[in-house]
């Protein structure tokens, strides 16, 4: 079966490319990052809109990285650690996510998560733009989708600043906090994005 871009790479740490934006380095997570992975994923404020349980130990961080390896191998999940260059080396601020890649339908889903300490600096918008560029440029995508829970205004603004357009309100599509949550679907097309001018 064709394996566009990754061409048979089976190791997440060496196969997922490092991406660079103006102030951020996006790279695969490694064992050395485990303590910071715990910090980032035990931030109560951030977890409120994340709908996944916190990570409480380096063992759980390692198990989490195992899922990233598995997802990379299946080409179904790509997660980068986001490291701001204006912080000390190895300071993990959050993650950037591409998932549900369909090379046939040239479509992919985008997400991100940042520890609350790093909110308000524009990192999520910069990460989103970097992942959009990678999707359209390297992965040959035509359409990127993102989901946000209504009420998460900060995340809506991130997507809008990155050029996304709201397309649909999907009723009770997510299950979080033991109750159904609506989600808003946003899209960005290659032909709509600023990347179109560059490529």
């Amino acid at each position, binding site marked *: 079966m064709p394996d566009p871009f990754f061409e048979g790479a089976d190791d997440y740490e060496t196969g997922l490319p490092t991406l660079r934006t103006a102030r951020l380095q996006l790279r695969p997570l490694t064992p050395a990052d485990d303590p910071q992975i715990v910090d980032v994923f035990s931030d109560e404020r951030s977890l409120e809109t994340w709908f996944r349980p916190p990570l409480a130990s380096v063992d759980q961080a390692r198990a989490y990285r195992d899922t990233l390896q598995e997802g990379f191998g299946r080409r179904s999940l790509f997660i980068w650690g986001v490291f701001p260059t204006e912080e000390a080396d190895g300071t993990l601020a959050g993650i950037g996510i591409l998932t549900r890649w369909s090379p046939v339908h040239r479509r992919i889903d985008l997400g991100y998560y940042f520890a609350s300490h790093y909110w308000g600096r524009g990192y999520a918008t910069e990460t989103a733009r970097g992942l959009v560029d990678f999707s359209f440029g390297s992965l040959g995508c035509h359409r990127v989708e993102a989901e946000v829970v209504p009420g998460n205004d900060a995340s809506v603004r991130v997507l809008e600043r990155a050029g996304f357009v709201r*397309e*649909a309100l*999907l*009723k009770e*599509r997510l299950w979080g906090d033991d109750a*159904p949550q609506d989600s808003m679907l946003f899209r960005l097309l290659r032909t709509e994005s600023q990347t179109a001018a560059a490529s």
Partner: protein
Amino acid sequence: MPDNPFEAGLPTLEAERVLLRRLTPGDDAGLLRVFGDAETMQWWSHGPFTDLAAATTYRERIDYGLRSRSLFQWGIVARDGGLLMGTCTLSDWSSTHRRAELGYILHRDHWGQGLASEAVRAVLDFGFGTMRLHRVEADVDPENTASIALVERLGFNREGYLRERWWPHGTPQDSLIFGLLATDWPPAP
């Protein structure tokens, strides 16, 4: 209530005129008939199969989807005579979010008799019942008026118009997204 409704494989579902069951190698010729017909395939996410090998590969992928619990695709079979008429699918199952996506296809020879509706109802009964889904969604070509009518009759709500979401035949294709919640199943008669 079983934790894993698929522990013993794909359960057979029964309706009045159709059965829904796991596809087997003996179905490959029937799959080619359904998925090889251009008119039948005009609303599908890829073009028609051109040979038996394509049908075999497709069925093997369905088997893989069952084993990995990501895709549940039943053959729609006439109770009277056993003819394979199409398939019905729940895909992208998220047990975390209690949600799956509905799909179906019926060979054009069997259109207009309510058979697709009957098959879809049986799958939704199973989805909302045994699988304990909270939400089922359906992605439909905006020009597929028959499917739009079918899902709306079953209570699906149109939630959005999605631009250029598919590349079935070499050019981008829009779609409509519909959602149906367990609280709205079954539909009022």
